[in-house]
């Protein structure tokens, strides 16, 4: 059966989009320049994307740790193995939950804000103005935000993990009366720095690149209308969430 031209176009559209996203990243990387102005702008973007995401990361981390320990503690208590709660908490956080949940929260808080900012810059001709001043908007706008994602997400993952362990500690030790020495001791004995913590941080760097990349891409390609910018921010969250969940599975399978 022959596919109609419009059907074929619809079929090819996602492939074209993927190619477009890839080319965008290659262009951004090929035009990278590290001048003092660029470094200062990148640090400013790390502040906007990272520091301003702290409230949601700290709160999210704390409650994820709390609820994870609550459920694990309940399940383990049926087998009399509650001393393993800190190990399960640390392993699930370092390997999976920390990088994945932090990036999802980052995409919702900072990714959407980056997309909307760049989309509005296009709508208000600010990107055109840069181009007309012989300043490469890719270099001036895209590069600092892309690098900010790579720096901010791993740092936020660390903070998320610390807050989650704190939440777990409060529930297990202070509320359920577990022995704090067993809590910390088991965690230190079982968790390996390179394999568990290191792999999680590698994931965080990869996820940071993807979150920053998709946020700037959808902002850059947003239609310069209010509807276009709204659609672009939604696309950022959806595309980041799907990419992170799929990539997390692939990376976990390779890193086991």
């Amino acid at each position: 059966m022959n596919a109609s031209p419009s059907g074929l176009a619809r079929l090819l559209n996602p492939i074209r989009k993927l190619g477009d996203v890839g080319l965008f990243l290659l262009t951004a990387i090929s035009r990278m320049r590290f001048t003092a102005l660029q470094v200062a702008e990148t640090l400013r973007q790390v502040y906007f994307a990272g520091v301003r995401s702290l409230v949601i990361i700290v709160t999210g981390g704390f409650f994820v740790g709390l609820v994870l320990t609550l459920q694990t503690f309940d399940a383990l208590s049926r087998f009399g193995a509650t001393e393993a709660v800190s190990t399960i908490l640390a392993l699930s956080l370092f390997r999976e939950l920390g990088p994945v949940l932090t990036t999802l929260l980052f995409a919702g808080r900072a990714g959407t804000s980056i997309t909307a900012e760049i989309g509005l810059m296009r709508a208000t001709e600010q990107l055109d103005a840069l181009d007309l001043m012989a300043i490469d908007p890719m270099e001036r706008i895209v590069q600092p935000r892309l690098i900010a994602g790579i720096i901010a997400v791993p740092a936020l993952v660390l903070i998320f993990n610390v807050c989650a362990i704190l939440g777990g500690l409060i529930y297990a030790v202070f509320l359920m009366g577990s022995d704090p020495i067993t809590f910390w001791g088991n965690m230190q004995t079982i968790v390996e720095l390179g394999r568990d913590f290191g792999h999680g941080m590698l994931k965080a760097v990869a996820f940071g690149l993807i979150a920053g990349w998709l946020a700037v891409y959808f902002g850059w390609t947003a239609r310069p209308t209010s509807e276009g910018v709204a659609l672009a921010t939604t696309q950022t969250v959806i595309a980041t969430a799907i990419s992170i969940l799929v990539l997390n599975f692939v990376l976990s399978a390779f890193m086991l």
Partner: protein
Amino acid sequence: MNESSPPIRLRNVTVRLGGRVILEDMSLDIPAGKVTAVMGPSGAGKTTVMRLITGQLKPDTGEVWLGDQRVDQMNSKTLNRLRRGIGVLLQNGALFTDLTCFDNVALPLREHTDLPEQLIRRLVLLKLQAVGLRGAAELYPRELSGGMNRRVAMARAIALDPSVLLYDEPFAGLDPISLGVSLRLIRSITRALHTTSVVITHDVAEVRKLADFSCIIADRRLVASGSPDTLNNSEHPLVRQFLDGQPDGPVPFHYPAPELADQLLESERRA
């Protein structure tokens, strides 16, 4: 007239955008060191002319010359060098909202020169003084009116002392005072910097006060050019409709549609 202010020439330019012909085999000469107004109805291709001059758009056929340099054949590196000599005032100013007025004006100086910060500060204050907004240097664009934002954008456009200045709809939406200020600034900047100034507008009354030379683009081509007085005496129907603001004429009032009676009868038949 400054030797460095170049004339601009468009030769047999055709531009198609999204399958639509915007300009067709159009030629235009913009004299050096003068204020030229490019006028025409909305959607006639005035901004396209500006985008051709800055090299943001390449014509499908034809040539674009800035002095002795052919803009439409430049690669991005040469184009960037050329753009440092062109100041552009976009329709809404396009200031960076996260930077103060001072930093907005300082941006091209910081990017393209190695001047010490102290000298940049002096230059920026002088540019802001020229547009009457030295006192607003530390304010953000959101704290200023639309007219003031455009004046800051004007200061930014002249930051590198360009030889060509392009103004895209500089009078749109301005109150009479801001409009008067803008007119005076365009005139005084052109005189002081000896620039070739191009004003894209459809504001007929202001063009009479400002321009040394004006032209009207309509129906994909140049329909008239000359001094504002010459244009004023033109009998060309398109020129007359535009200058007199007639609602109907060669540029029709109605968007193309089937006959009203046919469409009404069709609706009745469907009901």
